[in-house]
């Protein structure tokens, strides 16, 4: 059976598409990194299942929604935990992260330049509480998991990738955001220094988010 063809369609940034690009690269699977600019997006919108990106196209069949895509690829390539219980924990941490992104959105929209607002006020009142809430949970879980460089189990999962990439974006807007979370910092350090991931990070287009 031949390998499926993969195309990941997303905007040129990292955002919701990056974790899936990373898994495709880490697995050594060739894929089309289909980056669609904001200007071109209206032309393509109607051809997507939900009028949104990212979309994964596998042998011509589309899958929408970033976490559905990430979980599909993680299951294909062994980044979803080694047991059903581990997979459930990867899912739980990813969904906790998703809840956090909803909470921190008012700050990030201003920080990314998509809206007007008092960045310092939002950092203090919106960003810092959201970060503390999520990262306290992540730090606890990382320690309970044995401080072994992973949030769940003993090998790389997509939640290690998801959180690590986000930390790289967040720290440019919230200095010293992770001082209180050393075990999480270790996970990020270990994850981003994986040779194959480092290879991707070094060659990917540089984008602020």
């Amino acid at each position, binding site marked *: 059976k031949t390998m499926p063809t993969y195309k990941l369609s997303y905007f040129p940034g990292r955002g919701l598409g990056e974790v899936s690009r990373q898994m495709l690269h880490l697995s050594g699977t060739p894929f089309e990194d289909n980056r669609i600019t904001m200007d071109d997006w209206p032309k393509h919108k109607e051809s997507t299942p*939900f009028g949104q990106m990212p979309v994964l196209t596998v042998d011509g069949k589309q899958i*929408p929604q970033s976490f*559905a895509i990430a979980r599909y690829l993680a299951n294909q390539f062994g980044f979803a935990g080694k047991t059903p219980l581990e997979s*459930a924990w990867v899912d739980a941490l990813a*969904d906790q992260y998703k809840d956090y992104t909803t909470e921190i959105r008012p700050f990030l929209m201003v920080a990314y330049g998509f809206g007007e607002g008092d960045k310092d006020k939002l950092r203090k009142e919106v960003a810092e509480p959201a970060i503390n809430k999520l990262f306290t949970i992540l730090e606890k879980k990382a320690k309970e998991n044995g401080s072994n460089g992973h949030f769940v189990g003993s090998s790389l999962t997509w939640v290690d990738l998801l959180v690590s990439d986000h930390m790289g974006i967040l720290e440019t807007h919230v200095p010293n955001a992770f001082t209180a979370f050393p075990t999480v910092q270790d996970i990020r350090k270990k994850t981003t220094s994986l040779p194959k991931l480092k290879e991707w990070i070094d060659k990917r287009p540089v984008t602020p988010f």
Partner: protein
Amino acid sequence: MPAYKFYYFPIRGLGEAPRQIFALAGVEFENIGISDEKWETFQKTETPFGQMPLLEVDGKQIPQSFAICRYIASQHGLAGKTPFEAAWVDALADQYKDFNNDFKKFFYVQLGFEDGDKEEYKKEHGIPARDKFFPLIVKQIKDNGSGLLVGSSATWVDILIAEAVSRIAENVPGFFESYPEIIAHQQKVHSIPQIKKWIEAR
């Protein structure tokens, strides 16, 4: 069979879909309602994330409602029959979650949990959220061809959406008037014998 304990407030909310998945799977579980009075202590001493629902499987905990739904469903063939189907179940569930994040701005006002002008919130948040999300569900039902959302048998996202629809319809009269396919889907799911039985007994 593992021992399942399911912890949530004694309301439907985020707990109802997991409970119905157990019911459809025919799996026994301890359905534990944590009252508001007990919650403060329970939250600090028992929960990994300070939140419910919480599932315990032979004493091992899983938080987060969708992780719980997917775990139970996957163990019992209710999460799609192929990886591609499972991805679509997940995608529809996450699209519902996005809808609910917008919709609840109106729904909480409608239910009286938050202050606001109900008609204004309905116009600003309720109707736009509905009209962005439910056409996608109608299309999915039509394209899928079985009257259900993915594949030929009920999956956890059918349960999730049917429960949301019934809860909304109960509290916002006429809300799905122009979405007969959505009401038909909800009725189809809720007439599945195991689910019908659960609803009658709750």
